[in-house]
């Protein structure tokens, strides 16, 4: 599997470590009254879709950037790759 890195071009999947669902970017507010329940869902529960899945990949043996890879779990086809820093910056701006 080749990962089209936004800065470095296509890179072999073995250079990466997979962290899982990109929802991990959205850490719950620890001060919220229902924080315990939200953290349980955040840490343990997953949508685990059969189809398009947004996930975090860490370029461990490369430039050590975090990527948000949008990938089809039925075909392994990669639909989009973004820098995780861009994704969270965009989210901050829209907040």
């Amino acid at each position, binding site marked *: 599997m080749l990962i089209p890195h936004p800065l470095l071009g296509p890179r072999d*999947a073995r250079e990466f470590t997979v962290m899982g*669902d990109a929802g991990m970017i959205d850490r719950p507010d620890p001060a919220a009254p229902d924080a315990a329940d939200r953290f349980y869902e955040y840490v343990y529960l*997953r949508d*685990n879709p059969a189809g398009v899945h947004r996930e975090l990949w860490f370029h461990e043996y490369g430039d050590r950037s975090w990527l948000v890879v949008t990938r089809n*779990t039925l075909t392994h086809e990669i639909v989009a790759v973004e820098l995780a820093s861009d994704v969270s910056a965009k989210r901050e701006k829209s907040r």
Partner: protein
Amino acid sequence: MTFSAMRLLRESVTGHRGWKPLWRRPGPKPRYDIVIVGGGGHGLATAHYLSRVFGKTNIAVVEKGWLGSGNVGRNTTIIRSNYLLPGNQPFYEFSMRLWEGLEQELNFNAMVSQRGIVNLFHTDAQRDAYRRRGNAMLLSGADAVLLDKEKLRRMIPFLNYDNARFPIKGGLWQPRAGTARHDGVAWGYARAADRAGVDIIENCEVTGFRRDAGKITGVETTRGFIETSKVGVAVAGSSSRVMAMAGLRLPIESHVLQAFVSEGLKPTIPGVITFGAGHFYVSQSDKGGLVFGGDIDGYNSYAQRGNLPVVEDVAEGGMAVMPMIGRARLLRMWGGIMDMSMDGSPIIDRTPVEGLYFNGGWCYGGFKATPASGYAFAHLIATDTPHAAASAYRLDRFAGGHVIDEKGVGAQPNLH
């Protein structure tokens, strides 16, 4: 039709014309007391124990594809009970005991072969950890023998004992472990359940659960609606997809695990061998092929096929532990989809939906658990109370912090 030496003799002199199909091909009836979703090893075993132990017979097993078309036919056939933690080890030992009586109980040759498993250790610290594990096994009633290097060398002479990086210092041996013919297990359970009156309905995919005031009232399938008040879901690999139809999110990710078989060779490997410094395990099938595997690929997948980096990793593990494997040619490789749970241990429990029971999260250890999983799930469905050996496998254990994490790596499913 009962299998016996007499029967075999009679068939062999009459041209084998008397063998009949092992199970019927019924269509779904409008109503059953219990519907089991998933006609794999665990689902079929559940139906068998529901009828044999708990006296329930108005049962349907609905299967999306054909019987045994999922992970029960894709695993590496190893059976063992060499776990460490109190929530796990008694359950797997219960399973081992059921394996030992399985063929007589089912009147079916599942080729259960107790040829033993050896977990190799490579450091003093690992030896101590294995000694502790062996003691946990003994406490649960299982068997365990700690072998030093010389004893191990007499038993398995061909390993790379003097590997500079991972010298082999001994192994933890469970003589009662071994292998079983995986398809035979599915067929044996299917035949026994069918003979007890269970309807096994193939090519029947569940498309939804019908509920009324939080209670299950039936399942929607591609072959029509089936009314029932109890549904047991045993579809490991696809658990998240099926349970999502009941509105549940699970502590599970689906991952692909690859397995490999070499060309047929003369008998060379006495039992099952696992590498202690990487992830590699190997046994030899009765046809002579070396059956081996290693780590999961590490990314979410429902594709039943993996990628080459893991193939290389598995091959490297094999070469490190037994260099002679490099002479064998690879015949086939394939992938199966695993329910990787958040602590590496399974779930057998009720769900927030009344009448809906869940069995899944088997990671890549589901095959050995087949008999106990079926027994415990049948117990849960029939009596609404968990079986003593499976009482730790609760769905809500993550919220309460009662995880059963053999490897101690936390909520990172691709590391279990």
